């Protein structure tokens, strides 16, 4: 029973950071129509913010995480202004530009921090015991932050003027423009939020992984599986698919094998595509 609970706790943590990353990716795609392949590198930059501010410069951990959120959000604004806005009418060019940008971010990380993994001491070694399962505070931070941030995002999108503008642009950009909604402004907001979510995920998990300039590769693959399963463009789908994928992957790893878990994860994606090609929560394509 302890093993089951421990696995469930492990899966909850995994679902939390995966949801943050996937929702950020969906935000950018949904509003701007761009597949941001540099999303994994935004996660990496968030992690390195903590490497620099917390591990090297001894700033408080939560301050470093907040700085990571804002800094990566700002990078998102730069990406929107310099890459995605000029290429707005050509999503494929935007995708290619994002691949170029990820290589730039990787190279800058190598120049700034070297090729070796960054060392981040834990901000706390405290832990909880829940029904025999161990949950460290470090992991609890990630879970709590994910719940709070995703709840805040949901509220923002539902209740605020800017949130409604985002949804309107995502539904029909032309009609939204005719109503006086600025496409540039909504794109900026979407890009900032999407990038910041990836950045905060990287910053929060930095003490729990081994940050390297190349860590974004494995992150982006998982994120794409999740948003394909959830339905490309669906925020709710991204969250639910993150939970589903994390639980399946974690349980299969624990009870079978990590390699088999990857195969099962991909099989899950293929099964969803076969049975429901739009993903679990995706909308049908318009004619």
């Amino acid at each position, binding site marked *: 029973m302890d093993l089951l609970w421990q696995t469930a706790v492990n899966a909850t943590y995994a679902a939390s950071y995966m949801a943050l990353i996937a929702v950020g990716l969906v935000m950018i795609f949904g509003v701007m129509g761009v597949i941001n392949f540099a999303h994994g590198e935004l996660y990496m930059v968030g992690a390195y913010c903590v490497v620099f501010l917390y591990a090297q410069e001894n700033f408080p951990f939560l301050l470093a995480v907040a700085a990571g959120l804002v800094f990566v959000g700002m990078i998102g604004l730069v990406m929107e202004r310099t890459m995605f806005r000029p290429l707005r009418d050509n999503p494929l060019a935007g995708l290619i530009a994002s691949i170029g940008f990820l290589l730039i971010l990787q190279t800058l990380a190598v120049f700034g921090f070297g090729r070796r993994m960054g060392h981040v001491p834990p901000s706390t070694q405290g832990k909880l015991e829940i029904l025999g399962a161990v949950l460290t505070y470090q992991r609890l931070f990630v879970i709590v932050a994910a719940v709070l941030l995703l709840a805040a995002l949901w509220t923002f999108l539902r209740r605020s003027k800017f949130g409604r503008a985002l949804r309107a642009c995502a539904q029909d950009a032309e009609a939204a423009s005719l109503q006086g909604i600025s496409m540039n402004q909504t794109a900026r907001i979407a890009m900032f939020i999407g990038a910041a979510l990836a950045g905060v995920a990287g910053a929060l998990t930095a003490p729990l992984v081994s940050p390297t300039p190349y860590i974004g590769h494995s992150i982006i693959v998982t994120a794409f599986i999740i948003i394909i399963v959830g339905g490309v463009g669906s925020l709710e789908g991204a969250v639910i698919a993150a939970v589903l994928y994390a639980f399946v992957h*974690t349980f299969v790893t624990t009870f079978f094998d990590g390699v088999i878990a*990857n195969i099962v994860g991909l099989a899950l994606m293929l099964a969803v595509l076969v049975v429901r090609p739009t993903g679990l929560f995706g909308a049908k394509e318009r004619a």
Partner: protein
Amino acid sequence: MSRKSLHRKISRRKFLGTSAAAGAALAATGTGLPRVSFADSHTIKIGFLAPLTGPVAAWGKPGLDGCLIWADWVNAKGGVSIGGQSYNIEFVGYDNEYDVAKARTGATKLIKEDGVKFIMMLGGDTWAGAQPVAEREGMLFSTLLPSDLSPDSTTLVAPCEVHPIYNVTGVEWLAENKPELKTAAMCAQDDALGKPSVATYLAAFEAAGIEMVDAPLFFDPATTDFAPVMTRLMAGNPDILCLDTCYADYVHPLCEQAFQQGYQGQIISCTADFYQNIIEKTSEEFMEGFIFQFPDFDDPALNSEGINFVNPNEFYAEYANRYGASAWGAVSWEYASIMDLWADAATRAGSAEPAAVLEAMKADGTGKHAFGTADWWGTELFGIDNALVGNWPVVVIEGGKARIKAFKSIPAWWDQHKDLMIKHMTDLGQMWNQQG
């Protein structure tokens, strides 16, 4: 935001198609950036074809850094004497990023464009890329992983590290000194480094009478969250956690997870690169007694008689001075020690040509391995006697510092337990005649 709303400008099919295309493009990109080097006629170039970036860089880059110290020291003394002429040594690095295709490109470039006389590799998955080039060109290559050896590769030698065979010495020492520990659990990344090492540890545990509580757990090399892996390992309450030959990127979070999930038993691992960082993430008490196979070279035991590595303590001090003490890793000294063997063989051969050096290297069936005189060995395991095998150190962390506890003989273990090793290597498809 409506579930139907985020869906415009690009169709799902286009999304999937372009994602796949972009993924392929991304996989094809990368920067195997060769170093341009210039040398005069009294300089011999040596190729260094190893991962200098990426997750396996910890077993490449520190080795090149060590080689640069070796070259500076040798060149300051006038170089290597070959056929009555002194030659300076210059290293030409090529970052293969632990990628097969880049290894092939790098091998070709180093031979055709740079004119190197010898190429050192980490090996493993990347040897498959360099192998056709080695066979075609007759170039002398070295690997740190003798599991790359086969009768088809007559110009490949493993003159320093006999991974994973030396792992038996750690288990043997553990069984002798902590006989009360009777059960073990093990995990490894699913690749050419992990699998033969798993077979070796399985053989060593069986030889020592230590029972596995569960089958070895393989994980994908792209894994970043190790909590599930550690949960599974600890589920059987093993006396010993074996981390196999996991990369540093995995050993650190695995140890951290073991600490966080409350493990209190023995840990054994092939490596513990940058172990000071692991101690910082866990505690000195938790890491006390951690067994691995790679000493810090400031260890006094390396000054004992029979050690062939030149000035190990000074080498370590210079390394720490140049790159920082925390940069020292498992391979920091290994490629340099291979260069000691190469220089000795080239001097005796009176030539730097690959065939002549190889012949001189293996002339009397023995060689001056870093940890003592060793034999060229391996026919039963690798199909060819191209591995230099002798003693290997067992290292234990005590009071936050790695210390050599013993030098143990690999051939002596082999003589007693070779059937076990061959059985487990065969079961995992790791014998030389099982590899495609």
